[in-house]
C-alpha cells in the first residue's frame, strides 16, 4: 500500500493571496486529517516530502526539516502566490525545523500553531494564536489504547518462535500438558507487557517502564498461581515462574518507551543500564530453578 501524498502546495477550498498557509507531512493519514479539519475553509496546505512518515517522527529524523521546507517554499513559488509571509507549522515539527533559518532564507515567519490537527480550526478562529492547551501534549487512555494492537503485532514473531521452543522443551521433559501451560503462561506475560502495562501506565507505581512491567508480570504470576493450581507447584517451579514471566512483561513494557510522547533518550538509557542486566540475572536464576526441578 502507498501511504504517500505527492509533496507540494495544495489548495483547500478556494484560497487567495491573503489565505493562511499550513504545513504538514506527506504521510497520507496526516494529510487526510489536516485536510479534514480544514473542510469548509479556504487555505493553502504545503505538504513536505517526509517519505510517508508522520510529522513528529520525520522531524526527529530531519526530513520534516529546515532544508526541505525552504526547498518546498521555493519550488512551489509560494512567495508569488500569497501576499503575507506567515507559515503555520505543527508544534511537533519543531525538532526538525529552525524557524529563524527559514526566515533568513525565504522571508517567511514560521509560527508553531498546535500539537493536534484537531486544534487547527480553533487556532485559525482565534486569530492564529495558540492557547496553552494546544501546546500541551497528552497521552490519554484512548491514545494509549490505539497503540496496543501494533505492540502485539510487533511482538508476534518472537512470541511464536519462543512459544514453539517452550512447548517442545516442556512437552519433551514433562508431557504435553506442561508444554501447553508454558505456552499460555508466556502469552499472558507477553500481553501483560504489550497491553496491560501501556493501558495502566499512569496508575502503575514507579517511573521506570521496566519496573511497571515487572508489576504487571507479577500480577499475571499471581493470577496463574490462583487459577492454574499454584498450590500443587513445587517450590522450584514457583520460583521459576515468578522469576521468568515478569522478565517477559518487563521487556515489553520497556519497549513501550518508544511509543510514548514523554520519555527521554537519557532516561531510557539509564533505565536500560539497570534493567537489562537485572532481566538477564532473573532469567538465568529462573532457568537454573527449572533445571534443578528436573534433576532433583
Amino acid at each position, binding site marked *: 500500500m502507498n501511504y504517500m501524498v505527492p509533496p507540494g502546495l495544495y489548495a483547500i477550498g478556494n484560497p487567495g493571496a491573503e489565505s493562511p498557509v499550513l504545513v504538514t507531512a506527506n504521510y497520507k493519514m496526516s494529510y487526510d486529517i489536516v485536510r479534514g479539519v480544514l473542510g469548509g475553509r479556504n487555505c493553502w496546505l504545503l505538504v513536505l516530502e517526509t517519505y510517508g512518515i508522520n510529522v513528529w517522527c520525520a522531524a526527529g529524523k530531519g526530513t520534516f526539516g529546515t532544508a526541505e521546507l525552504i526547498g518546498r517554499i521555493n519550488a512551489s513559488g509560494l512567495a508569488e502566490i500569497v501576499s503575507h509571509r506567515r507559515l503555520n507549522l505543527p508544534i511537533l515539527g*519543531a525538532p526538525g525545523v529552525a524557524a529563524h533559518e527559514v526566515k533568513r532564507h525565504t522571508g517567511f515567519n514560521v509560527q508553531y500553531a498546535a500539537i493536534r490537527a484537531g486544534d487547527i480550526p480553533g487556532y485559525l478562529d482565534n486569530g492564529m494564536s495558540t492557547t496553552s492547551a494546544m501546546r500541551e*501534549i497528552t497521552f490519554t487512555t484512548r491514545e494509549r489504547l490505539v497503540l496496543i494492537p501494533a505492540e502485539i503485532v510487533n511482538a508476534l514473531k518472537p512470541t511464536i518462535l519462543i512459544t514453539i521452543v517452550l512447548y517442545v522443551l516442556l512437552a519433551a521433559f514433562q508431557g504435553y500438558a506442561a508444554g501447553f501451560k508454558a505456552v499460555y503462561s508466556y502469552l499472558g506475560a507477553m500481553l501483560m507487557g504489550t497491553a496491560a502495562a501501556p493501558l495502566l501506565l*499512569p496508575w502503575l507505581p514507579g*517511573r521506570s517502564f521496566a519496573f511497571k512491567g515487572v508489576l504487571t508480570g507479577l500480577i499475571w504470576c499471581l493470577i496463574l498461581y490462583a487459577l492454574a493450581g499454584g498450590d500443587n507447584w513445587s517450590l522450584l517451579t514457583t520460583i521459576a515462574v515468578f522469576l521468568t514471566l515478569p522478565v517477559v512483561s518487563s521487556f515489553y513494557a520497556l519497549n513501550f518507551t518508544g511509543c510514548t510522547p514523554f520519555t527521554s*533518550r537519557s532516561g531510557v538509557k539509564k533505565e536500560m543500564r539497570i534493567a537489562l542486566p537485572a532481566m538477564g540475572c532473573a532469567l538465568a536464576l529462573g532457568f537454573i530453578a527449572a533445571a534443578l526441578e528436573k534433576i532433583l
Partner: protein
Amino acid sequence: MKGFNYLSNVATLKISASQCTGCGKCVEVCPHQVFALEDKKAKLINFDACMECGACAKNCPAAALYVDAGVGCAAGLLVEWLRDRRLVGINEKCC
C-alpha cells in the same frame, strides 16, 4: 504533562542565561512546558519533563540552548547498541 512522570535528573538540556535574548521561541515549541519567560529570560521551570526532542535548541536563534536530542526508545537504543558493536546488520524501519 499531567499524570506522567519519567525519570528525574537525567535530561541533557542546558541553558546559557547570558546568551538568551528572551525571544520566547523555546516556550512556543516545547510540548512539555519546560520553559517560562521571567525578566525577559527563558527559565527552566520543569526540567524533569524534558524528553530531549531538541525542538528548543533547534529553534533558538541565539544558540543559548543545548540538548543531546534523540528518541527515548528502548528498541531503538538496543538496535543502535548492537549496530555499534557490529553484532547485527539490522536495517530497522522505525521512527
